[in-house]
């Protein structure tokens, strides 16, 4: 009785979940990886703002943060940094790698006028340039199976032509001021957020979440995951359960059972709350309509 009263109080006190899952064409099948996690490769040219060691370690910590979620079982095998072809996207039948790379020059200042890439598809791969405008800081390109939502490739690009990336812990840089010895655009903060997208999460409406849309200059809070992020990722890739996919899509094989634990980098309170909410939501979802925003089909 006392336990159920405590759990009831916990549920009452916790806010409703806010995470969102990405879908094919916004309203199609839910996105997911057939594997638990994915490999990644950092292009060895890195960023001019930082030493390779510093920048690359920040990227690795970003993926490690998602791998540390104990109610899931994600792994991210790193392919050693190398000078890659720096081509994002997906070539059918070819070897496709999930790249993390900085673009050091903008396409607007690089590409000759009249090149067909300008009007046909974009020039980032052909000229190794940032092609999303001078105000975009980072983006992820995900290629998936249209019918199932299975993710086949995900590449993260960071705009090194217009932004200063940092890895120091603080203080935040003043807007418009010098960006030395302070946090401008934190690599780990940015890549942890983008890595959430590579896994199939969209933006959360929870302002405390790493997957929340706003990212002010100097921010480092998204280096860590928060309860809403944990709930989202464990709903997609629950340890011991099948990967959550859209109705009618066959879930990929799942890893051996392990149950949701409470260890790892996030606080035990956050994980307990996330696990409780996931369990509650699973029950709720059993009766929800197939088209509800977060409804997913579990094999079990």
């Amino acid at each position: 009785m006392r336990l159920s009263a405590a759990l009831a109080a916990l549920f009452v006190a916790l806010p409703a979940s806010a995470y969102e899952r990405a879908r094919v064409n916004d309203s199609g099948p839910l996105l997911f990886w057939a594997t638990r996690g994915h490999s990644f490769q950092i292009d060895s040219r890195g960023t001019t703002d930082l030493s390779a060691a510093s920048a690359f370690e920040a990227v690795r910590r970003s993926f490690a943060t998602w791998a540390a979620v104990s109610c899931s079982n994600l792994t991210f095998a790193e392919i050693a940094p190398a000078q890659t072809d720096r081509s994002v996207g997906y070539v059918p039948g070819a070897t496709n790698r999930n790249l993390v790379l900085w673009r050091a020059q903008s396409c607007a200042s690089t590409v000759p006028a009249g090149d067909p890439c300008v009007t046909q598809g974009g020039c980032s791969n052909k000229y190794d340039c940032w092609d999303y405008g001078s105000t975009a800081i980072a983006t992820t390109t995900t290629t998936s199976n249209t019918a199932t939502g299975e993710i086949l490739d995900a590449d993260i690009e960071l705009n090194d032509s217009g932004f200063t990336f940092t890895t120091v812990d603080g203080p935040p840089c003043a807007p418009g001021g010098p960006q030395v010895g302070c946090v401008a655009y934190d690599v780990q903060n940015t890549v942890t957020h983008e890595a959430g997208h590579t896994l199939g999460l969209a933006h959360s409406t929870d302002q405390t979440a790493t997957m929340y849309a706003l990212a002010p200059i100097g921010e480092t809070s998204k280096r860590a995951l928060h309860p809403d992020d944990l709930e989202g990722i464990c709903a997609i890739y629950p340890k011991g359960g099948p990967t959550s996919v859209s109705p009618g899509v066959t879930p990929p094989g799942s890893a051996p059972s392990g149950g949701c634990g409470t260890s790892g980098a996030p606080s035990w309170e956050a994980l307990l709350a996330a696990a409780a909410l996931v369990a509650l939501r699973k029950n709720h979802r059993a009766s929800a309509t197939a088209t509800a925003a977060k409804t997913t089909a579990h094999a079990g």
Partner: protein
Amino acid sequence: MRRIVLLLVASFPAAAATVRGPADVASLTAAAEAVLHARVVAQESGWGAGGESSGVIFTRVTLQPVEWGKGSGARATVVVRVPGGTVGELTQTVEGVAAFAPREEVVVFLRKLGDEPGAAVYAVERLALGKFSVGQAAGRPARAVRDRSHVACAGCAAGEEDDLLVGDLRERVRRAAGSAR
């Protein structure tokens, strides 16, 4: 010959990128080379220049201008290049880009990419933050609404409006375009 496949779905972006603000109407107007009130008349997706080996899928959105708020064009249609789209069994999603629906009425803030025979080609300024969708409930004045859900913004002000009367939006664009001259 480059294969173009008719886009059959209403919209395509699914997640989000990070953009530096501000993205209020005045700032967008100042940054844009053209501001256009228009209607979507066609969309088609295909592989980039070079075909499948390019690795990238993009979508051509053809707009029929209703009114130019900034800049001008003599041509009957304008093409907006949007990264991502669907070609057969593959869908490519580039976070945060503006999504367009068939026959949708929009106000878009554009930067010019280049020309091709019969049309100027643009991109949307500040990804999805540079597009408002125009709609009108029965008996109500038309409104222009912006969807921020797929774009993370660094430097956007809390008070930036995403839901405006079309007339109000048009006036703000006119003022900002006038002051920029």
